[in-house]
């Protein structure tokens, strides 16, 4: 018994001694972002001075990312954790933060960056009382704000500030790149607006509230959501009601993400007689959306193509 006890204690001491001491010796700022949109903005701001890793691939819905311990391993060496907030990642991020055992990125630590803090146009903030009869609602508001590229600007400036705090030697470069990124967005905004002009004369039926910020930014007329209660399969009656409403309008584009049940949405679009726009949900959702700017590019182009299929 005594021998066994001593052996276990020795093992504990040994593993403690050889445990990875973190990323203190790393030259580049190690940034881990939950979403590929945020990772792309972080790369634009950080340039060669940072190393950026995204946890959730752009092909996956960030509501349902499995909390793989291998993701915690990536976070264990991070200097900065950039996340969307508003409880979008609540199903997996707290678990990963705990498993990462990295005090640099714990809530309240200098490396903890909640991007929702700088978003001023939050949509769908529920009234004071909220319950799950309306589905898996986000009680602090719709968290899909990166679908409005105007929100990328304060995010870039926030990241520059926080990177400068953690890495003062490159502070000027971070701020310079953030302003360049903001200028890029400002230059593209009129073009994106113009490209989607035809759609503003028609209506859109969206699968999920993921697209609320896009609809709001582009000034689109929304018929409704197919999945009206987030996280809950829509009832046949509700789907029938959406189809009936859309048919009556006659000029509707149906919008869904690559990760939705595209076959089901195709069938709904067919029954309406409407064009379908299958859009990447985040940067990297399709091959050509390899950066945040290209992601918004892809969305606008696919919406314009769908609108072109509607009668004048």
């Amino acid at each position, binding site marked *: *018994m005594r021998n*066994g*006890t001593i052996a*276990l204690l020795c*093992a*504990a001491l040994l*593993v*403690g001694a*050889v*445990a*990875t*001491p*973190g990323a203190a010796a790393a030259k580049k700022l190690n940034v881990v972002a939950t979403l590929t949109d945020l990772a792309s903005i972080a790369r634009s701001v950080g340039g060669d001075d940072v190393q950026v890793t995204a946890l959730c*691939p752009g*092909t*996956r*819905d960030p*509501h*349902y990312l*499995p*909390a*793989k*311990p*291998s993701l*915690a*391993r990536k976070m*264990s060496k991070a200097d900065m954790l950039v996340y969307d907030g508003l409880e979008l990642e*609540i*199903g*997996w991020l*707290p*678990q990963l933060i*705990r498993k990462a*055992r*990295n*005090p640099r990125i*714990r809530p309240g630590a200098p490396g903890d960056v909640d991007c929702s803090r700088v978003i001023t146009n939050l949509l769908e903030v529920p009234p004071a009382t909220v319950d*799950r009869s309306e*589905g*898996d609602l986000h009680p602090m508001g719709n968290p899909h704000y990166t679908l409005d590229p105007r929100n990328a600007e304060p995010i870039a400036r926030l990241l520059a500030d926080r990177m400068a705090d953690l890495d003062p030697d490159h502070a000027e470069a971070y701020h310079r790149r953030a302003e360049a990124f903001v200028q890029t967005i400002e230059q593209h905004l009129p073009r994106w607006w113009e490209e989607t002009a035809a759609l503003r004369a028609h209506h859109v039926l969206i699968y999920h509230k993921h697209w609320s910020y896009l609809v709001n930014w582009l000034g689109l007329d929304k018929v409704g959501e197919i999945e009206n209660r987030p*996280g*809950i*399969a829509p009832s046949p009656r509700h789907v029938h009601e959406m189809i009936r409403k859309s048919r009556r309008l006659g000029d509707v584009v149906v919008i869904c993400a*690559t*990760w*939705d*049940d*595209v076959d089901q949405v195709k069938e709904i679009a067919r029954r309406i007689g409407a064009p379908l726009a299958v859009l990447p949900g985040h940067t990297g959702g399709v091959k050509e959306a390899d950066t945040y700017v290209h992601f918004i590019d892809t969305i606008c182009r696919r919406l314009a193509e769908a609108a072109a299929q509607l009668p004048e």
Partner: protein
Amino acid sequence: MKRKKKTYLVLLVGALAALLAGVVEAPAQASSTATGVSRLMNPAISANALVLAQTSADDDAPAANGIDLQEAEMQFTSVVDPFWTANMILSFHRPEDGGDGLATEIEEASLTSRQMPAGLELKLGKFYLPFGKHALLHTHQWAFTHAPVAVQAFLGEMHDVGAELTTSLPLPWYADLKVYGTDGQVEGLFAAEDRDLAWGAHWTNLWDVSDNATLELGGSALTGPLALGRQQYIYGVDLTYKWTSGTRNFGPAVHWTSELYLPRADGRTGSPLGLYSIVQYRFARNWWVGVGGSIAQDTPPVEGHEAVRPDPDGTVDYREGKLAVTFAPSEFSDIRAEVSYIDTDQPGFEDLRFAVQWNFTIGAHPAHLY
């Protein structure tokens, strides 16, 4: 008299006004330092309940024939201060002896460190012993209505009071090592006297087989005191494969877990061995099917399946098979239909059971382990 009535009226209106003012002020006071009872610091609270309806081919097993509240659980989680996070789980269930009423149990009451150096984590208090995979699951996370017979026979409800240290191993893949020492008071497993303690370790390795699939291999060892100065040793190996569709929400998914237990107590009889394997498959958005098999060899009779004549050495071999279909309309509720069959190496004992189980969770329930 009239003046008196008027005075009462004024007092009544004044009291109502004060009451209304209090109601209006209440939200502000909820976070006011003046009241000293800020609700902002309340822990995350959740509750879960399991209702089980079952029928057994064994008419003489009342616990296996009827509808019952299988278990209700409350969980409280909060940061304590800059150094600790606390977790407390209270469980309410039928008494182990099958008596009336509900037994209350503290399954977990632990502190977990937030600021240990070198990636270490320390847990103190009462907690689930990290032995393999199934022993760490709460009842509402089980794939079936009951734990595999191998788990029931050799592990049971493994929570104890002590300390646990966790560290990451510097390997090219995810590797975690936990070592722990506890009081040695796990019912059915240890019987500590005086200053006897139980000690154990669990080593987890996980590889990303692809973007959507992982393979996990774990090894566990646990030793603790038995009566009359004897020592209990248990070794375990667990293997888990998980795959989920990476491109479609609620698409197909597979979870396959197998565990092997080798108890080696001093003065044991026979060659005790436990084994189970469970496969779960999501075949539609809200639907899962699960298939499982388990054996427990050279074990004393297992609770709920005692109607058996053991071998002369007091042990028996069990074999079990299960099939379940689960409908989960959301993350917070599900309903399960299950058929299970169990028999032994003894003639005349076999049992076929049908069960339906409801499960719901309310409140801010922490995300489950991967």
